[in-house]
């Protein structure tokens, strides 16, 4: 049972960005302005902390890990997140903005069955994901 997914359009953009910038990661932001939006960086550019939660490795390019801050996760845990993309302009230092796009996090509630499956699977992993692991 996955906590996160990616739309075909967003996956396609992640493939393009990977070709231009190398392996990527996404980190869900919070707070002001461009907050509540996901940020996309070259993997290794952003220091993933030990308390960051790995929501999933998105099925795009060679796999794109998607994280959220540990405390923020507590408030988001009951929702399934899908990385989508919309036409947009700007957003922090996120890589897609020069392309005229902005990643967007769409959310839905987990169903009861999904919640039970997630409960059974235990807490999600924390800290940096590595493709070799």
């Amino acid at each position, binding site marked *: 049972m996955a906590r996160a997914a990616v739309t075909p359009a967003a996956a396609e953009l992640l493939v393009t960005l990977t070709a231009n910038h190398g392996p990527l990661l996404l*980190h*869900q*932001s*919070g*707070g*002001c*302005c*461009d*907050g*509540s*939006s996901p*940020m996309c*960086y070259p993997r290794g*550019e*952003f*220091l993933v902390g030990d308390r960051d939660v790995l929501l999933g490795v998105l099925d795009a390019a060679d796999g794109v890990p998607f994280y959220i*801050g540990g*405390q*923020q996760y507590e*408030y*988001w845990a009951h*929702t399934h997140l899908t990385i989508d993309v*919309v*036409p*947009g*302009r*700007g*957003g*922090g*230092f*996120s*890589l897609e*903005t*020069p392309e005229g796009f*902005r990643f*967007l*996090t*769409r*959310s*839905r*509630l987990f169903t009861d069955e999904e919640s039970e499956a997630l409960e059974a699977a235990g807490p999600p992993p924390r800290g940096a994901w590595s493709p070799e692991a």
Partner: protein
Amino acid sequence: MPTFAQPGQSDAVVSFASRYDNVIGGEYVAPTKGRYFENPSPVTGKTFCEVARSDADDVEKALDAAHAAAPAWGKTAPAERAVILNKIADRMEANLQVLAVAETWDNGKPVRESIAADIPLAIDHFRYFAGCLRAQEGSLSQIDEDTVAYHFHEPLGVVAQIIPWNFPILMAVWKLAPALAAGNAVILKPAEQTPASIMVWYDLVKDLLPPGVVNIVHGFGTEAGKPLASSNRIAKVAFTGETTTGRLIMQYASQNLIPVTLELGGKSPNIFFEDVLAEHDDYQDKALEGFTMFALNQGEVCTCPSRGLVQQSIFDDFLELAAIRTKAIRQGDPLDTETMIGAQASNDQLEKILSYLDIGKAEGARVVTGGERADLGGHLSGGYFVQPTIFQGTNNMRIFQEEIFGPVVSVTSFTDYDDAIKIANDTLYGLGAGVWSRDGNTAYRAGRDIQAGRVWTNCYHLYPAHAAFGGYKQSGIGRENHKMMLDHYQQTKNLLVSYSPKAMGFF
């Protein structure tokens, strides 16, 4: 008051250039690679100018110019710098409508807010820091009869400032005025969503500033913001934005061992105790307006009172009155001075707000009013408008916990004082809060118990200079809007001086 003509029309008070370059060393300088990006107005969704798409080479040129200017600027007499700040304020005041309409066209906010708030506050900010600078004193400490410690304020040198798009001119001025007063040269990176109005400002004041003291580098965060924030040639970086970018900027700063100030937003509670409805009077009217402040600037304010906490005993009555007040908000052409709420600043911002309206409904929150995109028709049908929205729900819902940055308030009830404080503090953030009570003791205690840097008490959304503004918890580091900002842009030089002719006796 009439509707202002759209910029570009013959009777408009402001006309934009078709293209904006960077400002480097007092000159307009084209980006090295010759690339530009299109800048649409959120009012119509149509492009009205193009703006320099800079990269690391342009940042280096700006750093060269700033470093060339900083030593002389830092040694100017405080009186001289204060005069320049005051002259900038005077120039802005003489062109208030020009700046206000430019701001509205670039950002989408109603012009009555730009005229009555954004630009007057920005003008006052320059005057405030001109005054602070004149009044600033160093200190001396008498260590003993023959030994004195002198403390001087010295500028940091060259500082980087990354500006958000919600108050493009005012937020730039909040950072520029103290940095310039303190004697620093600045490299400003405007938000790529709203890059044009600051260029109208610069064009008005450029003859007042020595070349290289204010440099403006446009472009995308990843191409221009990153080389600026990660440069080892800046002495400080100031950023207003969100948490993930805030972490990245701290990470860059840690590699250069330089300070940061961060303002990262919030999810501000606005608490209404039961006595607000005790009388049907001016105070009640003011409290209801205070609730409706969630729609100010289309909700695109870091301190948007986006969580309404209303005491159970008055909940239904209060919500009914609040809904009436909210439905009376006049949405329309931002250039019409009667318009109270304008357009969201960008398409992606609009999409994000709509995604939150979806999750709010999916989580079972009740839509009291609003809840949809607004199509205003005519020339505004391409604009990014959202209906002012009240949700009723519970504090564990996503719409209560994340900044939507739109005209959306999520309302819940509390039983008593302790419950109010518990809900108010159940958030990652701590930037702003509002407390409404006719009982001064209750209001005071609540203000002290809420974990937030600014607690408006029987008021909301006032931003006067001389009242410190900044966050607790994950809302940031440092303060703005107060003379203490001079310290954020200065370092302390201590001269420890002996006036004794005698050796110490160790060797």
